[in-house]
């Protein structure tokens, strides 16, 4: 039963059909590839770094930064700007560590972050959104606070069909959340831990768009036809109301950096603050810093 064969097939020269050459050269090739990769990584990568810009942080700022980057790269084809998300706190932290050249934040810097340079690029409102099927059109600031606090838990408090309110909030590192907490919740109250948490403006919008009983808050510039933005204390969440200071839930978009590197970084920042960059932001729904 147990015949002992010598595998693989031996060819006429006495060597196994393909292994000898193959395995040794395989290992050698791998070793060389390793070495090449290492050289390529160090050499090629560092060179390109000068033409590379990394912007990371706020998911509110992200789509606008991406648009600006797209436009800038169209005008300067040899530049490369990468925009990452992660939330304002993540962006600020990345800027502090140097992992990102520019951090994007939709909240103000706190004391221990003040060693960074900050460059405001726009004003943005925070919109309170509900599903399109929700008949409500306006809420007072106090009502919004009580909802997110967990004091008002059912839509029947507003003479709607009784149903629990599904509260959507952002994660703790979100600039939008921090701004919301400052502007709406105040120092005394917190967002209830029973609230559902999502990690980007887009996903909050998506959930509110699909859940008839949901309420959430997102960057005003990201409101689209799929959700309804409520008026706060009778003031509609429009760009003009942000501009003339009647809509109160407003925060700044900041770009922060440890040290502003000359070259692509400064050039891009100048582009954003230039009339062309600012008008691009205004068309997208933000308010420029010029005002």
């Amino acid at each position: 039963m147990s015949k002992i064969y010598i595998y693989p097939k031996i060819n006429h020269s006495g060597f196994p059909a393909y292994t000898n050459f193959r395995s040794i050269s395989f290992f050698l090739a791998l070793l060389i590839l390793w070495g090449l990769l290492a050289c390529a990584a160090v050499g090629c990568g560092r060179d390109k770094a000068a033409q590379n810009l990394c912007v990371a942080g706020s998911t509110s700022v992200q789509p606008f930064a991406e648009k600006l980057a797209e436009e800038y790269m169209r005008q300067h084809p040899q530049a490369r700007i990468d925009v990452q998300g992660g939330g304002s706190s993540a962006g600020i932290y990345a800027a502090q560590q140097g992992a990102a050249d520019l951090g994007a934040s939709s909240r103000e810097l706190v004391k221990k972050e003040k060693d960074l340079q900050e460059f405001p690029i726009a004003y943005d409102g925070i919109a309170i959104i509900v599903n399109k099927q929700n008949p409500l059109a306006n809420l007072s600031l106090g009502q919004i606070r009580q909802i997110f606090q967990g004091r008002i838990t059912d839509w029947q408090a507003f003479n709607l069909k009784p149903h629990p309110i599904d509260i959507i909030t952002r994660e703790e590192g979100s600039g939008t959340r921090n701004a919301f907490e400052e502007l709406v919740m105040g120092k005394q109250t917190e967002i209830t831990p029973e609230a559902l948490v999502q990690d980007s403006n887009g996903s909050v919008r998506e959930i509110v768009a699909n859940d008839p009983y949901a309420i959430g808050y997102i960057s005003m510039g990201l409101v689209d036809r799929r959700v309804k933005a409520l008026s706060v204390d009778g003031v509609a969440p429009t760009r003009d109301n942000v501009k003339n200071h009647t809509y109160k839930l407003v925060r700044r978009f900041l770009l922060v950096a440890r040290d502003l590197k000359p070259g692509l970084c400064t050039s891009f920042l100048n582009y954003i603050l230039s009339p062309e960059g600012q008008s691009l932001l205004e068309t997208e729904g933000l308010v420029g810093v010029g005002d």
Partner: protein
Amino acid sequence: MKKELFIERILLFLALSSIGSLLLITVFIFWEGVPLITHTGLKNFLLSSHWAPTRGHFGILAMIISSIFVTLGAMVLGVPLGLACAIVLAEFSPERVKTLLKPTLELLAGIPSVVYGFLGVVWLVPLIRDYLGGPGLSLLAGAIILGIMILPTVISISIDALSAVPDLYRDGSIALGATNWQTVRRVVLPAASSGIITAVILGMGRAIGETMAVIMVAGNALKIPTSILDPVRTLTSNIALELGYATGRHREALFATGIVLFIIIMILNLTATAITRRR
């Protein structure tokens, strides 16, 4: 002879490098996480449900309970269905069906978890919200999606375990007058039990470790669930949600959560080895 020694040295270097990197990771995780556990105290860390990392509260009880319930739910769903499927495919159907199905199962096992999560958000969550109540993003949704995700794994390995039982056992049982089902229930299943238990434990491991799908469907609320329609946050979801901006003690807390998960996996593996060795 010199060449042999040289090659042995290279291989030793490779082995040490890989073992070294694996060790590095383990040490890194424990190094970063243990300071927090000593700072908060193990009891407080594991048994307090107050998680407010920016204010110094690091209690992960709510998340431990959520992870346990979500995993249990996934097992309750995935194991019976998977086992039933495996039995039918291995014992009661022709060989051709098996060869057709194995690649399909491998395909399903390879589909990224985010796709499962997405399909869950689009199809399952509205169903739960409209017919069962709650926001839809819930413990139930997480359990169902995870249960579906571990199905291919459980089915595949169970089929292998069942097929590995020698036909001799089945023939003997039938010769003694047992029906097919009696044979399966009293002969084949016990014989394949260690393989099936391995399948279950592997499925459990996958369910515990799943992050993205759960973030998409479970709601991520920070409370201990009181009903299956409550939104929950598992240990893994918590790490993913806070990883980008956690610094200092907060980051140590995430690593400490990692330690807890690591230990759970270790226990699962030990159980699996112990069971397979005993049989």
